[in-house]
């Protein structure tokens, strides 16, 4: 049993986008605040802190996770993926990111990180989604700028492209 006292700070170690990171946190510190203000991974955004808007969505041990509804202490030792880990290299966008740019699937970009994480997680497991699947998946995210439809188009385009890329690989 591990007991962390209310007003003390304890080290939290986790793997962030395949890189080990460590910083101290009080028991009450949210994962969203930990990532942003302790680690400096500010790509994950905070929009409501009650689990509705989806801006803070990250992946913890393969599970889509609202980082505002998760304590930093809960993910000690876990693998966390955030928007900072999506691009294949700093000067190149991934297929999904490119599809977003091509389709103008973002405007202010504040909600985008969470949406990208949900889609990245989903498309890896569901390579040929229907539009209704994408709409169902993304109903857990709020976007105020785009009216959503360019996001759905980008997701479907990316899915098709990813499927084609996978086929090529398996053909090889």
């Amino acid at each position, binding site marked *: *049993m*591990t*007991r*962390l*006292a*209310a*007003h003390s700070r304890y080290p939290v170690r986790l793997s962030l986008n395949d890189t080990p990171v460590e910083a101290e946190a*009080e*028991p*009450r510190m*949210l994962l969203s*605040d930990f990532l942003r203000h302790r680690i400096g991974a500010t790509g994950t955004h905070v929009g409501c*802190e*009650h*689990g509705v808007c*989806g801006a803070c*969505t990250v992946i913890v041990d393969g*599970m*889509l*996770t*609202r980082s*505002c*509804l*998760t*304590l930093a*202490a*809960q993910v*000690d030792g876990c693998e966390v993926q955030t928007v900072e880990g999506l691009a294949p290299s700093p000067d190149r966008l991934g297929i999904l990111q490119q599809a977003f740019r091509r389709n103008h699937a973002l405007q202010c970009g504040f909600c985008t990180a969470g949406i990208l994480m*949900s889609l990245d997680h*989903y498309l890896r497991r569901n390579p040929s989604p229907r539009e209704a699947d994408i709409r*169902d*998946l993304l*109903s*857990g*995210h709020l976007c105020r700028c785009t009216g959503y439809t360019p996001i759905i188009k980008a997701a479907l385009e990316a899915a098709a492209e990813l499927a084609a890329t996978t086929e090529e690989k398996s053909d090889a």
Partner: protein
Amino acid sequence: MKPAAFDYIRAEAVDEVLEGLSKEGGNARVLAGGQSLMAMLNMRLARPKVLIDIMRLTELSRIEDRAGAVTIGAGVRQATLLAWPELTRTLPLLALALPWVGHVQTRSRGTICGSLAHADPSAELPLLLVALGGEVHLRSTRRRRRVSASEFFVGMMATARAEDELIEAVSFPAHNGGRCAFREVARRHGDFAIVACAAVATPTGVRLTVGGVADVPMARDWPCLDGSALDDALNGFAHELDARDDVHATARYRRDLVRIIGRDLIGEVLQ
């Protein structure tokens, strides 16, 4: 909007949870998926002194299909149950209704037992437990007991769980071959239900269970009714539920949905 301070206990054995609950009583809250509790902590609606995290306990994360019942441990997430290959065969009603619970992003973390513990009158899982006549497995350092669904939910966000008890698991009777149906009306997809209804065929007729209207999910068993007898029965039930107005719906609207959807679902189940 940050939580008030609390101690955090990461339990590594069920006994540690029980001891913690025994010692801290009402000052402690069990943290499972956190999809309801964490929002309440952030808003400072809940201010426990201690949080006991049970999600590292592998013994609580089992789904067992045994002796005519499916038992789901306290650590089983909603998404895990939804992805369980035996779900449609053993619990077809849950297979129908689980996609209505929150969103993909909350089902991935939220647990079955956590939703039951929270006992939101509009949540789907309490409704399903009542509809199927399931049992909640409670455990403390003092005792182990099982409480039937109808006894477990005693009011809005209030359950029969004593403060030193852990909801260790919940069990649903495995499917008996009868038909079942589920329908929910919410303002938007994924919202808490304005009215949710489940109909289940019983040996003598049908059971209709309604959530979102009264303080707890309410069930009614009827023989095979139709026509005006069914209308009267549904109307009586609708009026008994003590529906109320809120910003999303009126009491009358809720009663209308109970009458209309109830009739549709019973028709589906008894056809």
